[in-house]
């Protein structure tokens, strides 16, 4: 996966190499466990790729993480425990959904702030518009 090297070559679309992800020999026998591993894997970043989850990447590190994740699940870990196990070793950077903490509050708050600020502006403008409308008459 040589995405960083490919990037300058293209204008405005991501240029990942072919994505492969899960190989048959990794798949767990229990479909329920495999489904859990898939869902969790989609939220974990392949650390050597650009913006790819370990499910989508054929980088060796992604494969290692997929295997570790499945081992944890087979060992009876809950979803949280399995992810925590990986985060403990690889850091928050591995989470494609960043945790809510002090320095990500603004990230998670952005949509609400934008919506609230926008709603205030709209309310204010409508009020002004109504006053202006009284002058014009309907």
């Amino acid at each position, binding site marked *: 996966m040589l995405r960083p090297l490919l990037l300058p070559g*293209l204008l405005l679309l991501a240029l990942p190499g072919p994505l492969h992800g899960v190989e048959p020999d990794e798949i767990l026998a229990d479909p329920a466990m495999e489904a859990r591993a898939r869902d969790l894997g989609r939220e974990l970043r392949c650390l050597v790729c650009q913006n790819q*989850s370990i499910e989508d990447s054929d980088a060796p590190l992604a494969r290692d993480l997929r295997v570790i994740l499945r081992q944890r699940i087979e060992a009876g870990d809950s979803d949280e425990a399995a992810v925590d196990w990986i985060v403990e070793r690889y850091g928050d950077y591995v989470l494609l*959904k960043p945790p809510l903490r002090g320095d990500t509050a603004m990230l998670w708050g952005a949509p609400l702030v934008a919506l609230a600020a926008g709603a205030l502006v709209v309310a204010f403008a409508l009020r002004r518009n109504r006053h202006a409308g009284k002058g014009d008459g309907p």
Partner: protein
Amino acid sequence: MIAETGHFALILALCLALVQGTLPLAGAARGHEAWMKLATGAALAQAAMTMIAFAALTLAYIHSDFSLRNVFENSHSLKPMLYKVTGVWGNHEGSLVLWVLILALFALAVALRGGLPLETKARVLGVLGLIAAGFLAFSLFTSNPFERLDPPPVDGRDLNPILQDPGLAFHPPFLYLGYVGLSVTFAFAVAALIEGRVDRRWAQWVRPFTLASWTFLTTGIALGSWWAYYELGWGGWWFWDPVENASFMPWLAATALLHSTIVTGKRDALKSWTILLAILAFSLSLLGTFLVRSGVLTSIHAFAVDPARGVFILAILTAAIGGALTLYAVRAPSLRPGGFFAPVSREGALVLNNLFLAAGCFTVLTGTLYPLLLDVVTGASVSVGPPYYEIVFVPLMVPLLLLVALGMMAPWKRADLAGVLSRLKLLALVSVATWGIAWWWTLQASPLPAFGIALSVWIAGSVILEYGERIRIFRCPLRQSWRRARQLPAASHAMSLAHLGVAVFVAGVTASSAWQTEIIRTMAPGDRQDIAGYTLVFEGAGMVAGPNYDAERGTFVVTADGRHITRLEPERRSYLVQATRTTEAAIHTTLFADLYVVLGDAAGEGAHVVRLYHNPLVPWIWGGALLMAAGGAIGLVRRKTGPP
């Protein structure tokens, strides 16, 4: 010699852009008519020069002139002719020449347009001249495509094989047409701020450019995601990658602008906001260019090592955005407030449309820039990936999509909410019933996918209702309805078609993400596998030679209920020069689903890892985008008769 001609033409274009960007603006300020009239001539000449430069570079690619560094680095004599030509913009330097060419062509369209007052035309072309000067200087001083190599190499390094694909070959030009088209609305906004006047006429000048940009952007993004879908090998089509977001943000802003311009044009309202949106839409295009071109996305540190290009775009970005926003802050308060409307009205619905689109755009912007900013400020690294956007962006789009029906049903100026709702009563019942049935039928724990389908029914239903009401179908003889349909303005057909596209798109996105079937296994020749009603038999894989690659090609025979359906032949290609591998998925498309087959690694004794996917309604994603773009294109048709 050809290359030098191109180089010289590019330098002349810069000189002309500088003239176009200064004298007409000064002339408009001083009432100096001759200076204002210079704008048209300068725009014509600049268009001619950039065409010559672009043609020269294209010729160098066609002739495989490897004495040009740019051709050497991005082409190869064995490459198919199509990709020799599209390779012109498949790299940084060439893509900039395409950018300035498109900019010059848009300026030409403004220059040749009748009915614009001399001052306005001079100002719009002046602003476009300044933007062109910035990008031409960027091209000439940091990214010269005409640089020579001595001695010339025997052959080139070839174009990245991933770019040697029809979907990606035409993705950049469409995207650029969209980005650069927004520079025209930007220029009109700046001109309006200088003149302190925004009125319906202004909205009518701007509308075709907004509509064209939006149509091109829609097409460009759809092409890119279609490519990702069939090339990347597992059926994903959108990754919330920063590079994708860079094109999605201008699209969101342009969509908002499209709707607010309608309000300004029809009702002379929302002027100040429309102007701001026009500025922001182009600013986001520039930001997207900066993010992608500067390498800042790969890593902040890579950017710091070779900052020349990034800093140059940052300077253009700061000058354009900063200048325009300062002008806006100074001049916007003096714009005369526009027409009155009640909160419950079509205007009101379009204001909400803009609210949700703007909030969505801001969210994507935050998600894209936050990791960079956090890294710079605190040194902490976080990843913002698809799960984030699914949580924050999708909920912002749901109310927007619910609003589509209300917006189309509400009359201008003042609407009776009860009346609008009563016209939608039956449709609401049908939609809720669809939700329930789809939920029950798919036996899924989550009601959300079924909700997506219901949402699609709701939007499509409201489009049909609205259209039916307009042509009074079943309320008068069919012949009369037909006549009414033919007399509807193009804008009305455009709205119906584009919103129908939204409905189709929503259904496609929902079904393909919720109900995909995936089978990953090893198949030996002769093995069978059932998937979603199809039976595939793997016949084996063999080597075939392409023009500039070798491929391993697998053959699958597809049957359903014993009937032969098709043969699917996915490939794994090895490109010789760059030693790069690509996968070519084989796809059997029907109206309702794709059967998608990828050949994986060899697993010994002729066996291969095979990935099989059944992607329900996935063709609707691009079908929907195509309908949206078709709506945009129809909206561009000008009516011959009738009042404006």
